[in-house]
């Protein structure tokens, strides 16, 4: 099994895992990862996911960058009806990152009732389904930073 259980047994991290979407999520051998996007070298704007040209200035001089792993929860919902690929209920949120990108992800590591707009969130890698050949995949979720201290 490619998974190991972190201290305390609450967080399962892949070590290393196959990214569920390699163009958007980079996984590292130590079980951490980064969301990937584009930075415009001409005007400094950032985009998620990777783009071919900057929507701000139309420059095509973009570089691929790793985004910060901490941001602030802009809003969220508890999804109770979804497609079969996702077991309900799950928390879904938008996190604003310092690079001025807003990225959607599921929220884990806390009770639904404890989720609040404006919370500090961090990116965590977690098992995220399997590919067509049955290999387990690694995806990302957001977790309240406070959860570290619980």
């Amino acid at each position, binding site marked *: 099994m490619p998974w190991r259980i972190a201290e305390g047994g609450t967080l399962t991290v892949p070590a290393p895992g196959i990214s569920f979407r390699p163009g958007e999520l980079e996984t590292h051998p130590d079980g951490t990862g980064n969301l990937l996007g584009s930075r415009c070298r001409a005007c400094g704007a950032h985009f998620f996911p990777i783009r071919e040209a900057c929507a701000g200035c139309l420059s095509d001089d973009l570089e691929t960058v790793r985004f910060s792993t901490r941001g602030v929860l802009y809003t969220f*919902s508890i999804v*109770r009806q979804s497609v079969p690929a996702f077991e309900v209920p799950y928390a879904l949120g938008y996190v604003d990152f310092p690079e001025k990108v807003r990225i959607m992800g599921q929220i884990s590591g806390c009770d639904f009732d404890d989720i609040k707009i404006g919370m500090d969130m961090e990116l965590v890698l977690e098992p995220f389904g399997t590919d067509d050949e049955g290999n387990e995949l690694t995806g990302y979720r957001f977790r309240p930073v406070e959860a570290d201290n619980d």
Partner: protein
Amino acid sequence: MTDVHVVGVGMTRFGKHPDSDAADLGAEALHGAVADAGIDPRLIEAAYCGHVFQGMVTGQRILAQVGLAGLPLANVENACSSGATAIREASLAIRAGENDVVIAIGTEHLTSKFSGALTPDPSDPEAAVGATMPGVYAMRARRYMEEFGMTREQLALIPVKNKRNAAQNPLAHFRKEITVEDVLASRPIADPLRLHDCSPVTDGAAAVIVMSDKAAKKYANGRGIRLAASTLRTGSVDVEPTSMTYEPLTWKTAKEAYEKAGIGPEDVDFAEVHDCFSIAEVLRVEGLGLFEQGQYPWAVERGEADINGRLPINPSGGLIGKGHPLGGTGVAQVVELVRQLRGEAGSRQIEGARIGVAHCRGGKAVGIEGAACTVQILVR
């Protein structure tokens, strides 16, 4: 350049139609529009058909069924704005002088294609992490409540209003009035939204016939309603995160339409807006400039958006009450506008209505505000 006149309108009953398909429904709507226009169907020179999930050449299947195959026809997909985009295409063909009589059809047999929560295309990065359309609107609702203090009960007044209107619409999917308590007791879909906050999975079709000045004069005897503007835009790529409680895309699309029609939002008498979810109606009417940002829930509470209110919103019942057959929706909105402006809306008639607005907004793709937005202005 010629004006565009909506001369004939038709629609099926919206609801579940287990014994027919998208082409059957489209054909019924077409027959209705032709009969309403009172014209020989052979006068129709071109056709546009909006649908989302009905497969290749759905429009051609409709025309074949009614014996009109042979016309130039284009199928149009623009998510929930597909039908409205078909009307826009039809109007452009008239304005360009290419045609004098064009039909726009919108159809969807949604119950056979799909159930449960609609999601963005599976290739989309947000779909890959579990985005659903109710989930996205629920997040916008949560944020709106946080920013403006809207209560859950206030939000419930929108499905209550729209289903009250739908109860007066013989073609609506839902004909039963509901209460705030019913909304709050319905099944949670994506917190804070519940089942009654969501538009249903609906089968249905609608069709409108548009004509040039010349054709309208010859065939419509002044019964035409002028399509003063029909605008379409795609959301911009966000260069930085923007408010999810306001809709620049809706405003930009509306502003262009107001300018083309030579009016302002203050001149609008009523509107059919894309209330795919209760919160969506709030965001639409504020984006259209019809109500101040952050104010609509209180205006609804005061009855301003009722059929007999200051500015009726979704007199047909909207998507929540009348139903939401994706491709059919935008065309059905224009059907309602025409019936209201002709004074043929029966027990849901708005007194003295002269200017109506229809707004659609559909689709979701990562990093853009919205995929396709349309605004149509009809003037009596």
